[in-house]
């Protein structure tokens, strides 16, 4: 498996430099705008999986390199596993980089300590696995152009919901309640006190989500003809 990760890293090394650049800009932006801890955790858990799943797949699609990857002496199962492990190693590398960066430059020490709490790490783990569970299969199935169209569609949907929520004056329309329900669940997780049971729950749910991602992506990848 190590040779697979080495292969993925070598093949996408130009992407890694861009990735490092983004991370620096991201952390400077967090520090400069002093975004609250929770908000930055949410952003981080969305940006990292998006970058890993989308950019590596985009390069593979651009150069039609999957014929090369699939012709190597391995089967498709290991290829998907390698892609998942590489994505996770990149996410953790970025996370650790973030910690170092905020340790060095962040003014308020509370920010760093909050990050190092096991609860926030596990929440980050769960959120990233959820985003990855959505993104990796989506990218394998629809490709990078699918992801871009998807993001633009989300943007347009967001604007339309915003417009509708504004115009319909009554407060309790379904859209607004739907938005509020999402925000509440995230708040519930963030505020919950870090009892061991809760932490284990977080860990196992993250593990379950990742297993689902692996199985579903492998199912989709196996069905593709190159």
């Amino acid at each position, binding site marked *: 498996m190590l040779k697979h990760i080495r292969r993925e890293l*070598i093949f996408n090394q130009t992407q890694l430099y861009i990735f490092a650049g983004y991370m620096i800009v991201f952390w400077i932006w967090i520090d400069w705008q002093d975004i609250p801890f929770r908000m930055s955790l949410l952003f981080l858990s969305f940006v990292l999986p998006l970058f890993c799943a989308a950019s590596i797949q985009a390069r593979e699609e651009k150069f039609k390199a999957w014929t090369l990857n699939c012709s190597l*002496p*391995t089967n498709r199962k290991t290829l998907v596993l390698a892609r998942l492990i590489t994505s996770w190693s990149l996410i953790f590398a970025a996370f650790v980089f973030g910690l170092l960066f905020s340790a060095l430059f962040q003014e308020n020490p509370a920010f760093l300590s909050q990050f190092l709490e096991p609860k926030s790490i596990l929440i980050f783990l769960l959120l990233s696995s959820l985003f990855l569970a959505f993104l990796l299969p989506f990218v394998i199935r629809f490709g990078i152009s699918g992801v871009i169209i998807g993001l633009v569609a989300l943007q347009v949907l967001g604007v339309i919901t915003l417009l509708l929520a504004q115009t319909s004056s009554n407060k309790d329309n379904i859209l607004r309640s739907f938005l509020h329900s999402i925000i509440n669940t995230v708040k519930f997780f963030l505020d919950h006190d870090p009892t061991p049971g809760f932490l284990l729950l977080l860990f196992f749910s993250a593990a379950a989500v990742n297993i689902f991602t692996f199985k579903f992506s492998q199912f989709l990848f196996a069905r593709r003809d190159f």
Partner: protein
Amino acid sequence: MEYAVEIENLRKEFKGFTLKDVSFRIPKGYVMGLIGPNGAGKTTLIKMIMNLIRKNSGRIFVFGKDHIQHEAEIKSQIGFVYDVPCFYEDLKLKKLASAIAPFYPKWNQELFLKLMNEFELPLGKKFKKLSHGMKMKFSLCLALSHDADLILMDEPTSGLDPVFRQELLAQLSQIMLDEEKTVLFSTHITSDLERIADYITFINNGEILFSSTLDDILGKWGIIKAGKDLLEKKDIPGIMRSQKTEYGIEILTSNIKKAQTILPPDSITEKASLEDIMYFMSKGDKHA
């Protein structure tokens, strides 16, 4: 006779094209040429052996083993050269090779470097800077450096100039000296085939029309040019296709010797080149 690749009634349906019950065998230690019109299924067939395209039904055995169960083991003994280059174009050649090398247990770095400078390929150059011919040479280098027993090539010679092609074929025949190696390559240039192939398989819109040795084809097959009425009067042994022309009728037969015995004196018989055979098999009207 041991076979490197055995394909048994392989079937694959696409929207506009189906590969119908393809069965043929590639004997070990020989070169098999795969010819057929554009879109006849040559590339699909090669990709199915490499399990890049999944089969609907049928079985493929490589070195006697099923190509799905033992996928990794088989692929470590297969060298591949595709007509559309599939490498990351912005990487240097030595980077590409170093990423691929650990996958092959029998990777031989000295052989790789020897081949690279024999083909004058600079290791530090980026893949996209190479010309079409050099890209083909690089994939061949990779395919040959891990002592592959089976080499699959999809139109390796298209777009290369004749001198370069001769070099490539010379390199290939040099590999074939070692009895163990088998080569399957698809091409459009029949003169290359006549120069190097031992077996020829002709595929036409998803069906194998024939698969036999080159000398058998060039020896036994022939074209008869005769008057229009010949067809009605006699049935020609081994007749495959016929085509009406303004001078009379041209018949392709797979058994020229027997046919000659019953022909009227005014008819002319000629040897059939691969190109003529392809022309008749896809354009001529069928018989039997």
